[in-house]
């Protein structure tokens, strides 16, 4: 199995746009996943009865095979990027919802009491005390969801999307290993870079968790 370097050189433009498309699908999924998870997690954190329902539901959704999700969505959104993003978003929920609930649970009762005793109203306490303190746990979830989504995008090749995943079908069909190898390497690179960036973002957002100098 040898790599045809000249093929890579001839296709840098295509490879770049595939990689960007790949990344876009994954990041959109994590973004919408967070958008859905945050309010649900806040409700699940406050209303004990709903916690099991929400978390159970996100678990059940996670067990649906990815191809099945795309097929089920076809009548709704067709062979589009929307279908890809919806499918991936469903999978991010299992991690994002659970971590956000656990993050909110991890905020010390004493700290919430202090906020209340100082005269902070509940919404402001949520935004300025609870969510910031839950951030390390939420960010751990975001990192897993991001890496997971980046690896999952390829599955959407079945519906004509799939970013770098298209390189795999191309390579298999032509019995030409170079695109497959390039696809795998680029997917790995995307995941590594995205994860490193998220670590950096968390470092910037949570100055209080850094070790003292």
């Amino acid at each position, binding site marked *: 199995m040898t790599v045809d370097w000249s093929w890579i050189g001839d296709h840098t433009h295509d490879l770049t746009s595939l990689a960007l498309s790949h990344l876009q699908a994954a990041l959109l999924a994590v973004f919408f996943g967070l958008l859905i998870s945050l309010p649900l997690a806040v409700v699940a954190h406050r209303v004990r009865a709903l916690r099991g329902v929400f978390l159970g539901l996100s678990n059940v959704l996670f067990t649906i095979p990815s191809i099945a999700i795309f097929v089920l969505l076809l009548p709704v959104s067709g062979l589009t990027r929307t279908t890809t993003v919806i499918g991936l978003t469903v999978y991010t929920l299992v991690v994002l919802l659970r971590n956000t609930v656990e993050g909110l649970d991890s905020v*010390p009762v*004493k*700290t919430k*009491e*202090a*906020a*209340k*005793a*100082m*005269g*902070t*109203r509940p919404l*402001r306490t949520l935004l300025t*005390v609870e969510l*910031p*303190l839950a951030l390390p746990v939420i960010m751990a979830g975001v990192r897993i969801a991001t890496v997971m989504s980046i690896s999952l995008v390829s599955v959407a090749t079945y519906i004509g999307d799939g970013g770098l995943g298209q390189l795999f079908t191309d390579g298999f069909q032509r019995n030409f290993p170079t695109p497959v190898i390039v696809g795998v390497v680029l997917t790995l690179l995307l995941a590594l870079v995205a994860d490193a960036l998220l670590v950096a973002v968390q470092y910037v957002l*949570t*100055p*209080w968790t850094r070790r*003292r100098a």
Partner: protein
Amino acid sequence: MTICRPGKGHLMIQFDTVHKRFPNGTTAVHDLSLEMPEGGVTVLVGSSGCGKTTTLRMINRMVDPTSGTIRVGGKDVLEQDAAELRRSIGYVIQQAGLFPHRTVLDNIATVPLLLGWGRKKARARAAELLETVGLAADAGKRYPHQLSGGQQQRVGVARALAADPPVLLMDEPFGAVDPVVRTQLQDELLRLQKELSKTIVFVTHDIDEAVRLGDQIAIFRTGGHLVQCATPADLLARPADDFVADFLGAERGLKLLSLQHLADVPQGPAPEGGAWTLVLDEARKPRHWRATADDAELPVRPLKDTDSLLAALNESIASPNGLVARVDAEGVLTGVTSRDDIHEHASKTHGHGTHGTASVAI
């Protein structure tokens, strides 16, 4: 039912037949009527589960009473918006309860920011308070976990003082620090209170802390009953019943002596030609006791008028002839006082206990 009426000055906080029963059926506070004078320190004391913390938390509506009325500055707390009420009352929480994700400066600025002061003004005020509570300016940029327990507690006090509230609630604020630091923090609080004259409600289970800090002490018994409310001297001299006497502890008499100053005890000239002579330096400051028989020397610890009778009694026992050397503020000898004079004065305390707060048991 015990009613505590200080009967002096303006009343800042009034409890009128306040009852608190929790949903699980326990009565935390039982028919409490209690008044707290403006600018005074009221200490709520009792063992755990006696309702003292619930009483404190009803003042800023962290807990609402089942029945009865609580007034702060004459206004019924239940008729005020809870969040706004809380911003107008300083609260020092057990183990500081600082926000771990905010710098010390931003922790202190919490209430000013909620009141809409603007970040610059709030931070300037916070920096000023750092100094007030005895912390270095560079501590402001740190995070709470980078400070010691005692320093965190100071930040907690600064945070409560930030918007200059007339009332300060303190819920076992010094419970989590070691005894040496606790004494320092108590001294600092007394010093601050001299400057600021806040109406302070202080919860503790430590009777020594209560005696040191309180202008009046309210003793609670399990089930939320107020047993006695009086000045520390009154309480120690005349406990209302065995429960209070037990709570005050075996050294009740010595605690009472710790509240009395040496100033009123008479003094006479230092003895000449006895078994022991007080040796002075050129400035007439006492140096040591010298035995006439063999020139042996024993140390002397001179006392000022502001020292307590307890310190005087201790010194009279330690001194070889039962005499306590008395000095003025500069340390110059003013005279000596005998053990008998101290004893006589100490036993008078019962007769002197009628000043200040009276407690009435009905």
